């Protein structure tokens, strides 16, 4: 009996300590690839072929980043990515917030059916729509244009779902007060409901930005020319052309990855709140 109690007393602290070691190893394995990417991008091509590898570059420089702009219109590609991601994100948040509000606050025939249709499309993998979308876009001559990247991604069933849930659980007193003061639905939404839904907007904004910035499958179909290319497609093309110039490829990866991580760290305080609200109920 006593030995059993002792084991009970000791086991948690031991497994706990072991757990922290495992956690430390995991954390390192998360950071090392990013560090190695950054380090590679700052090295000259010759030093990549050294064993042991130079974890901390001995003679760091920005040559690889300069090469990026020489071998492809890299500025244009970054600009495309920024325009596409920013426009998709803002339009997605606006249309989803409006639609979510419409489903949460108005009663009309077919409301439930409409909501079910939104949910239903969430189950269909994007790959199903990609071939017809591509055919449609080539018919109207939108291949290799930014609008072909933007327009099909504006409506977001997930965003509508998120905002609907958020508005459903938001108290209505403020909106009622505004209505009594004579504000119509349009003003009530923009002045009161939407500002109060900021956590939902932050959550969905980040998810939408991430998805748009990182998208590969649809851009691979529709935007392979440099004039409409976004970063992931450009990066893959870069790798295709410069198989062994890993310093240049890693420089491109840094440019592709860094902005999203910065955006994420900047607004992660707001999103964890939003995610919990959306996921808990």
């Amino acid at each position: 009996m006593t030995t059993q109690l002792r084991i009970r007393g000791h086991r948690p602290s031991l497994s706990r300590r072991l757990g922290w070691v495992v956690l430390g190893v995991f954390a390192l394995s998360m950071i090392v690839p990013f560090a190695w990417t950054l380090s590679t991008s700052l090295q000259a091509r010759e030093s990549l072929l050294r064993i042991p590898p130079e974890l901390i570059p001995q003679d760091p420089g920005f040559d690889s980043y300069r090469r990026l702009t020489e071998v492809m219109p890299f500025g244009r590609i970054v600009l495309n990515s920024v325009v596409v991601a920013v426009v998709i994100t803002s339009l997605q948040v606006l249309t989803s917030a409006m639609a979510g509000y419409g489903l949460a606050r108005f009663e009309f025939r077919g409301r439930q059916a409409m909501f079910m249709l939104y949910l239903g499309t969430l189950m269909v993998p994007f790959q199903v729509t990609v071939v017809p979308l591509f055919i449609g876009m080539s018919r109207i001559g939108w291949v290799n244009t930014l609008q072909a990247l933007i327009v099909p991604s504006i409506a977001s069933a997930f965003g509508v779902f998120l905002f609907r849930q958020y508005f459903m659980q938001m108290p209505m007193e403020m909106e009622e007060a505004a209505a009594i003061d004579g504000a119509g639905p349009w003003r009530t939404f923009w002045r009161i409901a939407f500002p109060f839904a900021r956590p939902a907007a932050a959550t969905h904004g980040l998810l939408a930005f991430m998805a748009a910035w990182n998208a590969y499958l649809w851009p691979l179909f529709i935007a392979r020319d440099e004039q409409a290319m976004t970063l992931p497609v450009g990066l893959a093309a870069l790798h295709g052309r410069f198989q062994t110039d890993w310093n240049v490829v890693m420089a491109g990866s840094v440019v592709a990855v860094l902005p999203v991580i910065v955006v994420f760290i900047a607004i992660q305080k707001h999103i964890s709140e939003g995610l919990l609200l959306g996921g808990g109920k």
Partner: protein
Amino acid sequence: MKWLGSSKRWWVVFLAPSFLLLLVFTVLPIGVAGVLSFFEWDLLTDPEFVGIANFVEISRDERFLDALGHTLTFIVGYVPVVTVVGLVLAVFLKRASRAAGALRVVFFMPVVSAWVAVALIWKWMLNSRFGIVNWMLGLIGIEGPAWLFERGWAMVAVIMASVWKDAGFVMLLFVAGLQAVSPEYIEAAVVDGANAWQAFWKVTFPLLTPTVFLVLIILLINSFQVFEQVWILTEAGPVDSTTVVVEQIVRNAFTFGRMGYAAAMSWVLFAVIFVVTVAQNRLQKRWVHYA
């Protein structure tokens, strides 16, 4: 929902932009894909109606069946590992302390990164001669394989990279689930003489099963759609040993210009995902406990 009583029609204004775009760019293409799957069409000549020939061909297409098999292999390797890693991370990082928060951010960094970049980073790390992975293995006396060029190891590499990228996402879902488990239950178990290990399996885990269910649903739906990591990291090789379903869809549409066949494949993929999701829903009664 009554305060808008006098302005009922406004729902049209709020819903129109989103709903019309959804109809044109999602619902319509899904329908078109269904119709298209009964045609053979290379976009150059007129589409030709072929009945169910595409589906018959899919059922005998060895490349597609291989791809489906590899997709399942990927799922069997990836889903359990990423679930366990995500759960372990969540158990340790669920607390509200600043250190835990910072670590959560670290583990989430791969989640927000583009798959193309992540795949390229891993491709360089797994380089058999100059990559950092084999160098580190060398430090402990192991000669690493030529990861991406050896049958068997290529799929391991795809799974490793995927677990690395998604563990933080799974962690986040479990953190939300764990924070909803009331600490009183666990305290009660500890008072009754359970150790931390027992308390976790007997009390916390059963209360967490709804989250486990959610995680498995999301992971399975996503992993049937595995694509970028294969397309970039292994380029489906060596000798097609890591070709997957979505990669076959892209190849048939792009390389072979077979739009109808690719559309039919995408519907088969949807059907598989649908059946698996419904089956999971049915089975949940057996193991998911709702408090």
